[in-house]
């Protein structure tokens, strides 16, 4: 697959006029859908998280407006992108966003029973634990990637010397976290093995079903899609990470299916990245 990557930093905004008059039960009013992409700032892990949230919101069929800001990381209440801004509330990260949207009456996982909900939570933790951490490791602890890609991207909007300082500071933070959770001593091969293990588990859970919990997509599908799609379409110094995912054909089909259904040409959404 040829990979042409347009990195963008997303801040997803809900802008709502009739937010407080929800007597008819309508939650949001559609505003014209923009997005801009700056192209040179976002990193792999942030992109994955952003795409997961975007997919989730598309699945809930909520109208969104995508806005890009260079300092979105600092605007967010928890320091992580993406975040949504609805009325006068700001919510960041997939977990809280799911809960927030559920509180407003939209939920994808209502049809699941208790055991299935537990499974869904467990698999979401698996993805966060393995895939997200592996992405962070790859982009901050692997020297080749750090030198070529991450430093320049992370410090892009800032002038010298701030770009270097901020990049080193972030790298130091991430390395500290890796050490605390026990990933500090892992080699790249071990990390890739972990990714493989995770993909194998996801592939086995998915089996031949269209989505993880059969007919309807849930937040787990959104999360998995976000991570896998980003891994597949991001060009890094080496292709090992995406190769690991490509081994599992049902995961590839899953990504394509979600892309077509929720981001495809039927006008529901627009995604800058293409699965070639």
């Amino acid at each position, binding site marked *: 697959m040829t990979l042409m990557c347009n990195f963008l930093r997303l801040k997803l905004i809900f802008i709502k006029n009739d937010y407080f008059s929800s007597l008819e039960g309508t939650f949001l009013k559609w505003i014209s859908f923009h997005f801009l992409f700056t192209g040179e700032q976002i990193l792999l892990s942030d992109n994955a998280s952003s795409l997961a949230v975007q997919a989730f919101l598309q699945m809930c069929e909520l109208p969104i407006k995508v806005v890009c800001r260079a300092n979105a990381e600092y605007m967010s*209440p*928890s*320091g*992580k992108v993406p975040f949504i801004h609805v009325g006068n509330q700001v919510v960041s990260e997939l977990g809280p966003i799911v809960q927030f949207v559920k509180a407003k009456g939209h939920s994808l996982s209502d049809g699941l029973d*208790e*055991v299935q*909900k*537990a*499974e869904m*939570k*467990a*698999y979401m*933790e*698996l993805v*966060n*634990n*393995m895939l997200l951490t592996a992405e962070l490791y790859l982009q901050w602890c692997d020297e080749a990637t750090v030198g070529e890609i991450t430093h320049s991207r992370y410090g892009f909007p800032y002038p010298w010397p701030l770009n270097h300082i901020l990049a080193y500071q972030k790298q130091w933070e991430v390395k*500290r*976290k890796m050490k*605390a*959770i*026990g*990933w500090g001593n892992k080699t790249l091969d071990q990390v890739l*093995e*972990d990714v493989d*293990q*995770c993909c*194998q*588990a*996801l592939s*086995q*859970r998915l*089996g031949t079903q269209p989505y993880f919990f059969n007919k309807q997509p849930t937040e787990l599908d959104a999360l998995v899609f976000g991570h896998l799609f980003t891994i597949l379409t991001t060009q890094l110094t080496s292709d090992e990470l995406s190769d690991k995912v490509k081994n599992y054909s049902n995961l590839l089909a899953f990504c394509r299916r979600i892309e077509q259904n929720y981001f495809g040409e039927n006008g529901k959404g627009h995604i800058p990245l293409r699965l070639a």
Partner: protein
Amino acid sequence: MADKSFVGGIREPRQGLVRVIRRGRSGWGGGRVALERSEVSPKLAPHFGFRLSEAERRGGGHFRGTRGRGGGKMAAPLELRCWGGGWGLPSVHSESLVVLAYAKFSGAPLKVSVIDNTWRGSRGDVPILTSEDNIVSQPAKILNFLRKQKYNADYQLSAKQGADTLAYIALLEEKLLPAVLHTFWIENDNYFTVTKPWFASRIPFPLSLILPGRMSKRALNRILLTKGEPPHYHLKEVEAQIYRDAKECLNLLSNRLGTSQFFFGNTPTTLDAYVFGFVAPLYKVHFPKVQLQEHVKQLSNLCRFCDDILSCYFRISLAGFSPAGQDTVDANLQKLTQLVNKESNLIEKMDDNLRQSPQLPPRKLPTLKLTTADEESNSFQPLSP
């Protein structure tokens, strides 16, 4: 840090005898327990001499007895170094407990050497499995290693169940482990009254002054780095969040377990080892601050699960196993307190009886002299009870 490559694994577990040797503190039932012989496979025989010296070096004299018996043979010596037990558990440390449980489930012959306050052996990064030339250190890696040695507890699982195991282990590590760490190492009451003395008594002076503090700091670091991000700016908010998460996780586990004996049917697997390793210390260790323990006790199927594993897999071995001693002491103490309580109840009842019984009329003094006696008796009236 989930497990690897157990899916589609080996078909049969290897049977072996478990041999546990306790370098005991006096008062825990003394030194060695009877060694059991196990069969050695032919391919290991040529390496016997070499391995013996290695093990002897590490184990410090355990095998002298067998050598002296003229060629006592043993299987591949897998030695596990871990923290010891108490309150009915084989080990108080979660990760060590996971490995011990898995070894029992899969039948791996593991020689357990408990960390005590001698200077032998290492104390960092416990549990550590040493075997021939390999030193393996984290529970996930140790379990992998055991599987490669054909001690596999998961051979009956389907692919999907294997995937579920990975997912649930990730859930445990993400949601429950921070709360376990907090209960043991960060909650001040618990740390200073229970954890620190326990660990300090098993570490030689002067390390005992340093090491528990270091472990506590490491736990706090881990929690803050993974959970302590904004919007939680204060440790109290982080604590509230992690306890909420832990209770939710325990509820999920309880739902998943339902009424079955183990998580995947009737044989215990890796997931059972992990759940046991994390939940049992919370359930059994006596802490001053017990909010999570109360929650665990309300989930009766998890309690039953832990008790079952303890009684089936960890009681059969070893006389002189300290938890048994501890248990009898506890039992005696319980009986004593019950007796005292009964007595105090009796005394209270007697008191009540006395108070409720009709008041005896005040004693009248004998009227010796009419006039003065009357006066006296009159003057004495107010003093009668």
